[in-house]
């Protein structure tokens, strides 16, 4: 733009752009709108007003006025909020919220809660309407157009699909499996849940997923004691290069839940 080549004009633009950015930051971050000196802003605009010549200059001037108007509106809202009975210093409240136990927070909610009373009941008329709807409904075979997608999807996503969709790379996946196998080899035979559970539930689920591949590929073995409800995992004694496809495959469901993970963590902390 021509204006930016002129040093004095560049200075004007810099100053105005700074003010505009400041206005936008206040709006985006919700900081105190009184941080902006409105009077000084207007004086700056007034100072440059007579020097504006091009359309770009005037557009910038108009944008500055528009942003300033938004800040003044925020200042009005700010005063209204602080004068209302709801105003509490956000920092103080955040601190207090962090200090409270979930039980205390729930109690505070219940004490200020006035639940809506609402009941659901099927009336004879609604039943009649339902029956009329049923009678008017065409058989499913004649309404295939209404359900095009479910019939098209025949299987779930597997790892190959994720790799094909570039969600996961083959190398990344192989590296993750290798890391889990190395860990298992280091730890030896171990309780399955002790092996997969980690400090975070998210990583525990991920590890369980990767471990299932190790078992499927014959690189790890599960030893299940149904009476004691114990499941142990150990690195396979067979040659890891031996394809597992030679042995008949079977599915072994092992439960994994958030509540169980929480209990495991509490137990770990106690130990």
């Amino acid at each position, binding site marked *: 733009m021509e204006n930016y080549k002129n040093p004095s004009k560049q200075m004007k633009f810099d100053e105005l752009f700074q003010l505009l950015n400041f206005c936008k930051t206040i709006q985006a971050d919700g900081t105190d709108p009184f941080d902006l000196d409105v009077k000084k802003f207007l004086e700056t605009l007034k100072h440059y007003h007579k020097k504006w010549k091009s359309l770009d200059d005037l557009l910038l001037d108009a944008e500055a006025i528009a942003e300033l108007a938004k800040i003044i509106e925020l200042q009005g809202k700010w005063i209204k*909020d602080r004068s209302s009975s709801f105003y509490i210093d956000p920092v103080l409240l955040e601190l207090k919220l962090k200090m409270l136990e979930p039980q205390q927070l729930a109690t505070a909610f219940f*004490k200020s809660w006035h639940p809506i009373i609402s009941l659901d009941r099927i009336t004879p008329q609604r039943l009649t309407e339902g029956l009329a709807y049923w009678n008017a409904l065409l058989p499913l075979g004649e309404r295939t157009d209404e359900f095009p997608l479910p019939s098209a999807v025949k299987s779930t996503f597997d790892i190959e699909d994720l790799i094909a969709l570039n969600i996961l790379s083959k190398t990344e996946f192989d590296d993750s499996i290798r890391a889990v196998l190395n860990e298992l080899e280091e730890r030896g035979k171990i309780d399955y849940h002790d092996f997969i559970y980690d400090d975070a539930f998210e990583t525990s689920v991920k590890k369980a997923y990767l471990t299932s591949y190790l078992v499927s590929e014959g690189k790890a073995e599960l030893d299940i004691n149904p009476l004691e409800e114990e499941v142990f995992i150990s690195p396979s004694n067979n040659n890891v290069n031996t394809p597992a496809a030679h042995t008949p495959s079977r599915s072994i469901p092992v439960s994994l839940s958030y509540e169980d993970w929480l209990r495991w963590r509490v137990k770990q902390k106690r130990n």
Partner: protein
Amino acid sequence: MESETEEELRIRTERKVKKAAQLLFFRRHRIPGVKGWELKKGLGEDYVEVIAVLNSVLDKLGMEVKRISDAGGEKEEGEGEKKAERDRFMIVLKSPVIEKASGERIDNVAMLSATLAYIISKQGKAQRKAVEDFLSGKFPKQRIYFALDRYIKQGYVGEDDKALYIGWRTRAEVDRKSLLDLILS
């Protein structure tokens, strides 16, 4: 047309109050409550007066009819009839006398309580990311995403362009001033 006797008026009012109670107690839509125009259709032009009579009956049972606007804010005295038709009417417990009125898990209620208090302290609107970060101090992220989506679906929290605000249900059910006082006390 003959003028209505006092007895006839009493019977007609009783019938209308009964109908108003059924309209308000039983759910007709996904969202609980009834719009003013629906009440007007079911009860007649004097539906606001009928609701006032119902309110006095409910008061003895520790309940009340609450009127809230979808746009935000509760009813104000002297507001026009047109506005009343757009507002939503619902019955709420005036002062709960039972200890438990919900099957929600305690940690879910704690998260809701903290979310509402946080949003109120930010002048009624906060970035979803900021709320998630705040809650993540005590709860795993996955549970937070799930919980926030649920509060939005239930109407406790509204979402607009990645920002969360106080939802219609919180305005109807929660005494926000009392919630903040209890948290700070």
